[in-house]
């Protein structure tokens, strides 16, 4: 079976006054139908840039090179803007992080939902409205016909995020890109929204790219994980492999620095990664993580740019050979 989305050797550079910022460096992955791929990393690691590159929404300073970005057999890179805009929103949809700012405050919810469909498909306003009501109920919003007349400011953060999800689903896309969909929400709402996203995904058999820095969320919903650092993939694998047997020192560091009720001892020191994420500007060589890595050796500055493949899905980018964890 061919993949729903295949990204091969994607590079995104941003032409900034300070120099060329290599936001994404040689990233490859694929998303299967009905599966969730999670891009994990800290802020500035390039995960949002990947999403924008796929959607063709990079900022003007962004330059994108890739061998291919194939979506359902079509190469998105070879499309002109007009063709791409028929894909965007219709066959692949994006859910943004900030439900507060990504809805237009001047239009009602109904207007915005209906427009998402009539933009792409020849349907009457009535049919579009019916679909909007249907989807609002799907995402757990009651009294949906009166909600359609409301403006975004009249709704809470959780409701707005549900509206964003409903809007993404209006045209029945086959791929959904969720960029930090729950970061701005309370824990109780977060669990509900994730539950909703994954049940809808199963129901419509969509592929999903989940972009997040929250390993808790990832572990509960993702099938495959790509760990990113400084624009590069540092480790990939399926969810159980990544969590049970992390190889890359950065992945391990990330896992150790989050407090886990029942596992980390209250009041004791958390593992932490010293230093800060470097900015990938100018010429880069060696391993980007070496300055923060406790295992760094001399050869880390010279080698270590290639991904080592262990199996079909599993690979890592580190010169230090994998140590079998005892756990």
């Amino acid at each position, binding site marked *: 079976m061919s993949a729903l989305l295949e990204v091969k050797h994607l590079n995104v550079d941003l032409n900034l006054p300070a120099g060329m910022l290599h936001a994404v460096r040689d990233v490859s992955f694929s998303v299967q139908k009905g599966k969730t791929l999670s891009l994990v990393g800290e802020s500035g690691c390039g995960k949002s840039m990947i999403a924008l590159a796929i959607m063709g929404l990079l900022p003007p300073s962004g330059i994108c090179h890739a061998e291919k970005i194939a979506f359902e057999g079509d190469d998105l890179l070879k499309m002109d803007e007009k063709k791409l805009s028929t894909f965007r929103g219709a066959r692949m949809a994006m859910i943004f992080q900030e439900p507060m700012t990504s809805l237009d405050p001047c239009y009602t919810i109904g207007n915005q939902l209906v427009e998402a469909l009539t933009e792409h498909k020849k349907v009457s306003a009535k049919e579009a409205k019916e679909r909007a009501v249907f989807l609002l109920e799907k995402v757990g919003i009651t009294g949906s016909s009166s909600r359609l007349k409301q403006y975004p400011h009249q709704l*809470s953060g959780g409701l707005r995020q549900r509206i964003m999800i409903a809007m993404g689903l209006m045209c029945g896309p086959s791929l959904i890109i969720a960029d930090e969909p729950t970061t701005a929400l309370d824990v*109780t709402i977060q*669990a509900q929204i994730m539950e909703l996203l994954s049940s809808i995904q199963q129901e419509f058999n969509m592929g999903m790219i989940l972009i997040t820095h929250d390993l808790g969320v990832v*572990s509960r*919903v993702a099938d495959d994980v790509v760990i990113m650092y400084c624009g590069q993939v540092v480790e990939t694998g399926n969810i159980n492999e990544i969590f*049970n047997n992390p190889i890359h020192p950065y992945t391990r560091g990330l896992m150790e620095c*989050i407090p886990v009720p029942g596992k980390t001892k209250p009041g004791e020191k*958390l593992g932490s990664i010293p230093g800060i994420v470097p900015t990938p500007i100018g010429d880069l060589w060696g391993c980007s993580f070496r300055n923060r890595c406790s295992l760094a050796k001399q050869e880390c500055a010279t080698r270590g740019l290639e991904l080592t493949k262990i199996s079909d899905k599993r690979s890592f980018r580190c010169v230090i050979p994998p140590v079998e964890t005892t756990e």
Partner: protein
Amino acid sequence: MIEYALQTENIKKEYIVSGGIFRGNKPLKAVNGVSLSIPKGSILGLVGESGCGKTTIAKLILGLEKKTSGKLYIGGKEISAMSNKQVARIIQPVFQDPYSSLNPRKSIAKIISLPLRAQGLANGAADIEKKVDDIMEIVGLAPRLKHNYPNQLSGGQRQRVAVARALIMRPEVVLCDEPTSALDVSVQAQILNMLLDLRAELNLTYLFISHDLAVVEHIATHVAVMYLGRIVEEGQAEDLFSNPSHPYTQALLASVLTPDPELGLPEIQLGIEYPNPIDPPSGCSFHPRCAKCQEKCSVLAPEPIVKDGKLVECHYPDNF
């Protein structure tokens, strides 16, 4: 006898909110009778969803808002008998967003030393400089950053500056309002470790406000859970996390997504969303979302019950 660094007694804060042009004004009870006691040297974690009044409590304690009624004691003294300057001497805040809580036009040394200068506590420029150097070393900031400006620093470094500014007068209580929620996870761990170290080193008391229960469990010795302006459960951290009594605490704990691929997403029975505080539900304010709600709950507001140092406000608490 236990010495308390900070005590509140039934404090209330009401805001008057306009209901619309012709509808007149309505009171919004942001804090509705909260009594907290923080023993010296302990860390009280205050948790709850957004809009429950956590930050209003912080503002009342800092004197940034005037309370409607109730009493507030700092180190045994009533706060209304003290000037703002005296309060600031004892309590210092660390805010959530290190990008907006530091003045972008002042250098790091100026920002950190401002409390000293405002209080007139330093003897000349040399003394200020020495104190700034000392505190920067304690919070782990490189001395070379002294003459930099906030925009040249990373999020974690900025939060360290905010902590340094809070600690330079050696206050007794530090009030941390979501100090790590704007930071990356690896930086969050650095800041949490630092806060724990500082507490031991300088004998500090923290009021730690957060919505992240995993962080609170890690750092706090006591925990108070807040819902719609009231404390619904309070107790020793260990006890409260292992035996939650209030259905709201249980639901909050169940929503925490720990990194464990074996577990799926939890089923949370918190169906409808957070109620509007202008128009709170009758009886127990949690009853419309409560899985164990019974007839009594919608009519009668529960009174707080205290047993073995644990407080619960529920008609039908578990493990109690």
